[in-house]
């Protein structure tokens, strides 16, 4: 595997069993994603993109095949090892913001650093810095409910990036935002991708993301239909 390769999947298969019936969500995907990519995985509903991202992030285990992230075989990891790996290497941005409502903006962002035992003063510094980068300076003491949808998603992005993971996985990050907010958010992520060199991998239906992505992977029936680098 190339040094710059962040994600490598080989013959990835995921089969679900329900009432004795087998459904193949992913039928054998092999691909590589390299450092600093801004990639979108697209496809119609049921194409397997959610399952594919779940497998890459270690949230689900493959029926067959392997997933390597940063040269680590994540598909074989379990329990504490897997939790720690996700904590240190993957940042998540979910569709519906998914901040912890009882925590302030600062506490939400510093949570992962807290799991990493980063000292309090350093945590605070990094939170202030990342809030500046996502344009939310001065809002660290607010609760998520006191923020707009766009602001909440920016906090979610700040949380995903603050521990400097190598990979940001974003599931329909603009789905709950209006087009203006979505566009701003996307612009911001693009800038962060360019300035930090972090790898962004989206699952999306949003044409805006598809237009701006440097690589577009289209899935159909659990297989890669097209893989286009722009």
């Amino acid at each position, binding site marked *: 595997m190339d040094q710059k390769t962040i994600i490598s999947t080989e013959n990835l298969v995921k089969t679900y069993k329900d009432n004795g019936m087998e459904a193949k969500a992913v039928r054998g995907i092999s691909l590589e994603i390299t450092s600093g990519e801004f990639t979108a995985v697209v496809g119609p509903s049921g194409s397997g993109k*959610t399952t594919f*991202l*779940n497998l890459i*992030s270690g*949230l*689900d285990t493959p029926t067959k095949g392997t997933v390597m992230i940063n040269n680590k075989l994540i598909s074989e990891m379990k*329990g*504490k090892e897997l*939790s*720690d790996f*996700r*904590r*240190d290497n993957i940042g*998540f941005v*979910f*569709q*519906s913001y*998914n901040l*912890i*409502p*009882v*925590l302030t903006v600062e506490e939400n962002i510093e*949570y*992962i650093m*807290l*799991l990493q035992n980063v000292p309090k003063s350093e945590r605070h510094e990094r939170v202030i810095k990342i809030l500046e980068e996502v344009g939310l300076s001065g809002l660290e003491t607010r609760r998520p409910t006191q923020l707009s949808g766009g602001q909440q998603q920016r906090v979610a992005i700040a*949380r995903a990036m603050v521990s400097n993971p190598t990979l940001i*996985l974003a*599931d329909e990050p603009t789905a709950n935002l209006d087009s203006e907010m979505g566009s701003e958010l996307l612009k911001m992520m693009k800038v962060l991708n360019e300035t930090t060199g972090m790898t962004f991998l989206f*699952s999306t239906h949003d044409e805006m993301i598809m237009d701006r992505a440097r690589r577009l992977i289209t899935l159909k029936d659990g297989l890669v239909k097209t893989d286009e680098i722009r």
Partner: protein
Amino acid sequence: MFYLKLAWRNILRNKRRTIIASIAIGVGLASMILTDGIMIGMKDNLVDSATSTLLGEAQIHHKYFRKTQDVEKTIINKNEVLKELGGDNSVDKFSERTLSLGMITSPSTVESVIVYGIDPDSDKYLSKIDNRIREGTYFGSEGKRDIVIGSKLAEVLEVSLGDRIVITVAQAFTGDLSQEMFLIGGIYHFNVKEMDNGMVFIRKEKAQEMLNISTEIHEIAVKFTGIRMAEDKNLTFWEKYGSGENEALSWAKIMPELKNMLDMTDVSLYMMGGILFFIVIFGIINALFMSLYERMFEFGILKAVGTRPGGLRKLILFEAASLAVISNIIGIILGFIGSILLVKYGIDYGGIEISGAYMHEKIYPVMTIFQYIKYPVFVLIFTIIIGLYPAIVAGRMKVTDALRKSM
């Protein structure tokens, strides 16, 4: 510390639900604390009623006296026993008595009674006859022929204060009948049939003379320095005064039916406590599971971003403990207020008979700091034990199931 902070905030997130659940659990806890206090108060009341009315907390007899009721079965080495009792640290008061079956005759009728020969000065510490005199006095005159009888007996005999009656008893060894005339000096009323109808009290010296037992006695009623000493099987008293030809018995042995009833009271206390405890525990289970299922998605997020299963388990257990702490505070406050009211006003069960013992006084709960520690600690421990299940569920939860369509 972070998980503890998060747990408290989660608990306080839905304030209304937390308050309702905590009040429900707190009321259960307060009920447990008060029930415990009331049951102890009721037991003490019953034991006190039984022992202070006439029985005493312990009695010493000739080994065969209670079985045979033979008046010649007097206490062996009486003087030595009395001397030792006088110097015994565990003994507060004691009183010598004679006991015999006899007949009481008035101009109208004859009744069978138990004739107690007592020393009025010492017996007033062991019985409540002196407190229950309705007419006349408790051996107020120096006359040897004074007799104190119950109100019902007076009614049956159709006699009143100052009237003459005749007591007939069988003498020791010979069985010869001995008769003496007495003047009714006092009439007591206990509202207890056996006492008001079936007992009479005369001076000990007169009884000894009638029974022809010189200065011998049949019974020594004893009051210990502590109310629970009579229940202590290891007390040296029993061995010391119950060896040889004499027997020393606690009230529990003399009134086994009361003892059994009190033991049953303990069982019913445990059962009641158990029921209340289950109510409390189900309140906690309900609150915890509602909170868990409502926040599955949130747990999924926490797990996805790298929270270890142990971290989630810790969070849920802290939430359970936080709920228990709030409930305990409410329960302790309610219990304390309830106990102040009950200690002030008491519960009136006056005149009710339970297994031969009559409650003459109101029941007052016996509250100790131990009750305010024991039950809250139980609630805390059981809440944490119960919290283990949702904690394990959350720890094992599949992130994709929790997040459903996310990612």
